[in-house]
């Protein structure tokens, strides 16, 4: 409430106080209109490309006979682990003029700085989101019997996809579309890194420009007004979608697929692997390689040869300032993630008891609230006391990422079979003991996952941090962004590499841990009919 509603109310108040005339003037200026059109057009285009891409990956990887499936399932998520502005920056290093491909084979993509490049990087960074939702939608049906039934009724593989698999996936795909649209609309770093140099502005970059460079009071009001426009655009898409979709998406029991629906030609699986491989090389592999090479190369423009390699760039950037920033980033991220998992758990529990339905809906809305808007709102509400302090950034993270922790925890709670808890109670466990002994175990992966997602997102965060930081409160991501705007290619690349590696530090042990948790499943090949019936009862009741 204090975190979100009050600040947004202040936004509205300012715009109202400034009067309709000023607002009208701002909103009718051609620059603002261009930015708005760019934002919406970009988001629609990203949605139209990323959702089919993510769906194709999910469907392709569903078969267990794809060579190296376990590897690919992690690899397609790689773009999420790399901060999106680092990904964008590395694309410019890989495909831009004097970039990696230019130096090696003399080919570069003129449009990598501009709308085309922004679009490509946003598609690459949001496709994993669509992939995840589609994969969860597919996994919601543990048994591939529905596809088998279609095959046994005479449908070929592609007909099954058209008549059974995709229609059943519709709610998941709709949700993925909404999410990808909102993420693109809110994205700030990629348009800032790749679009701004080419004069391509969006609402988010305009807000940033208004707040950081202009001293004109009118530009502050413009930022506030634009922040509100962003909220309205988001709400216009999210509100109807959430109302129609959430009841259908909520009650799904995710299970590991019991196996491929049917065996298929080995060549098809090889094609899936080959397609994924080349996509990942183009989208992530080459750019990151280019980034690494830029970080290691002595001077810009030199060919990436061992004789030109040096660690100078790393030595240059590892100074007092960036080490402090690194400490702040990690500290903030750990604190935010830990607090959020606890808050998320409490809200989910409340919601489970039908008390906090409103709280839950609000937490979803915060996720949809654009980072730029939230930052501006927090700044004008609490800026008087907290401007430029780490506390304000932490508050912003908590408000923004709340829903990220809340969603997976609620999902895990929903998937608990009530009978299992009743059975524990009937066996003499108290409410608390039952929760600890029966519920905590299956929920552990969700809690871990929620913590990890919050941690990574907080570490990535640059939209709000770049608006809220002050002297002595820069996060590492902000330093990378600033260094990039100064055009220091080598140091920026070195910092980006550091930031990316930082993600791997907590990700690795947690990933191993979650694998261990998952391996504890009973290894029976035959599904236990009573368990399935329970799940069906639970589904019917939900």
């Amino acid at each position, binding site marked *: 409430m204090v975190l979100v509603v009050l600040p947004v109310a202040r936004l509205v108040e300012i715009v109202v106080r400034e009067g309709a005339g000023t607002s009208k003037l701002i909103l009718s200026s051609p620059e603002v209109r261009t930015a708005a059109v760019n934002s919406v057009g970009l988001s629609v285009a990203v949605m139209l490309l990323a959702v089919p891409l993510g769906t194709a990956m999910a469907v392709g990887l569903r078969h267990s006979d794809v060579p190296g499936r376990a590897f690919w399932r992690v690899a397609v998520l790689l773009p999420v682990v790399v901060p999106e502005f680092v990904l964008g920056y590395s694309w410019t290093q890989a495909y831009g003029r004097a970039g990696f491909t230019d130096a090696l084979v003399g080919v570069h993509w003129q449009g990598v700085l501009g709308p085309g490049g922004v679009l490509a990087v946003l598609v690459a960074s949001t496709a994993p989101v669509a992939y995840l939702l589609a994969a969860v939608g597919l996994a919601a049906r543990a048994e591939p019997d*529905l596809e*088998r039934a279609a*095959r046994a*009724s*005479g*449908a070929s593989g592609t007909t099954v996809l058209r*008549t059974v698999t995709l229609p059943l996936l519709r709610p998941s795909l709709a949700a993925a579309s909404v999410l990808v649209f909102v993420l693109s609309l809110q994205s700030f770093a990629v348009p800032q890194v790749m679009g701004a140099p080419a004069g391509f502005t969006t609402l988010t970059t305009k807000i940033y420009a208004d707040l950081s460079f202009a001293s004109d009071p009118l530009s502050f009001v413009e930022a506030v007004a634009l922040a509100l426009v962003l909220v309205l655009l988001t709400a216009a898409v999210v509100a109807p979608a959430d109302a129609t979709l959430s009841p259908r998406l909520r009650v799904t029991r995710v299970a590991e697929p019991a196996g491929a629906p049917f065996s298929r030609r080995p060549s098809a699986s090889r094609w899936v692997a080959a397609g994924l491989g080349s996509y990942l090389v183009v989208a992530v592999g080459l750019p990151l390689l280019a980034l690494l090479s830029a970080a290691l190369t002595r001077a810009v423009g030199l060919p990436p040869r061992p004789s030109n390699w040096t660690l100078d760039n790393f030595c240059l950037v590892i100074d007092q300032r960036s080490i402090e920033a690194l400490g702040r980033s990690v500290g903030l991220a750990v604190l935010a993630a830990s607090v959020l998992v606890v808050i998320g758990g409490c809200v989910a529990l409340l919601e489970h008891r039908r008390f906090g339905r409103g709280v839950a809906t609000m937490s979803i809305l915060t996720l949809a609230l654009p980072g730029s808007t939230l930052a501006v709102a927090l700044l004008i509400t609490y800026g008087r006391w907290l401007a430029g302090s780490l506390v304000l950034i932490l508050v912003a993270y908590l408000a923004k990422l709340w829903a990220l922790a809340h969603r997976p925890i609620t999902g895990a709670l929903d998937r608990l079979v009530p009978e299992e808890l009743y059975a524990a109670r009937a066996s003499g466990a108290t409410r608390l003991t039952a929760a600890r002994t029966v519920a905590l175990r299956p929920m552990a992966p969700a809690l871990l996952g929620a913590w990890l997602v919050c941690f990574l997102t907080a570490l990535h965060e640059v939209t709000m941090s770049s608006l809220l930081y002050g002297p002595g409160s820069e996060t590492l991501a902000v330093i990378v962004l600033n260094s990039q705007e100064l055009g220091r290619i080598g140091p920026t690349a070195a910092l980006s590499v550091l930031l990316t590696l930082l993600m791997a530090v907590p990700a690795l042990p947690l990933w191993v841990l979650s694998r261990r948790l998952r391996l504890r499943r009973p290894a029976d*090949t*035959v599904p236990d009919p009573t368990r399935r019936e329970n799940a069906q009862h639970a589904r019917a009741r939900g």
Partner: protein
Amino acid sequence: MHEPVADHVLRVHGLTVDYDGVAAVRKVDLTVGRGEVVALLGPSGSGKSTLLHAVAGFRSPSSGEIWLHGHLVAAPGHNVPPERRDVGVVFQNYALWPHLSVLDTVAYPARRRGTGRTHARAEALLILQLLDIARLADRRPAELSGGEQQRVGLARALARRAALSVFDEPPAHLDTHVRGLFLEELRARQHDSGTAALYATHDAEEALGLADRVALLDAGRIIQLGSAEQVYAQPVDLWAATLTGPASVLTTRVVRTDADHCTLDVAGIEVRVGCRSPGLSDPAVRRLLVRPGWARLGGDLPGRLRAVWYRGPHTDHLVDTPVGDVLIRAPGAVPTRVGERLSWSLHRTWALAAPATHGQTGTQLRPVASTGWSEPPRR
């Protein structure tokens, strides 16, 4: 590839199917003739579903061959996809598509044959009428009861017009009336396509009552294959005996044998009973199977009533005798109380082979299945 003679619908030869690296089906040989219903009877995890999935084309064999109607459909490296096999499948949990209405579900196979929407729906409606569920045509699966879902699953399999129908163990008993309708329809089609059925179940009563022949499965192997009467009255070993129904085992000595009778020594009394087991000439102590109907209450053998179960049409009596516990089924209850002495007589028996080396599926088998059947019926 063609077989020279194809007088059966399905022929499985030396089939082995791996499931996650473990052989779920091992070297199975099986044929299903025209118009024949064959049941696969075995406990959970015995490989019934895997065998059916291999026949339907969802799983490819690691060795062996599957022939349908004289065409080779599966061999290592050769796998005809399910849609091009002449097999209709009724799924374990019916596998109804949540996004399609009942009518469109049943019209689906015809649509895949290239029939237009109107004709396919008309055809589907006929099948729905046949199974007495035409009133459900516009419903979605979520709006159907369990029994109705079962009928829709059957209707879709019928609409496939396949030579072989495959039933994956239904979680509940098939409604007897619906099953009758379905089999009747299958048999009515025999004259044009030679329709046959392969039916997996863990329920002995269902398997014996339904099938022309029964295959007993354990740990992926076929232990015995024969008519329902054969597998019930002449099981190959104790495990097979317990799987197919209540089995009492007498430990006694055979005094002598002649033609199709043998004389047993029961607590010093010589009893002559019907017994056609091969290899009874060895007068050693052996284990003899007694089915509930093979012994009667009243006679000259001593015993003590240990327990009584009233089962409606008949009553089961567990009698403690000098040669082991015997389950005797009688139309009504005897006036004897539990613990009191009574007399009984034996009319038929079957010599069991040495203790089985299979039966690794973990099912705990008892010589006397006091609950009546090897697995209690599920609700």
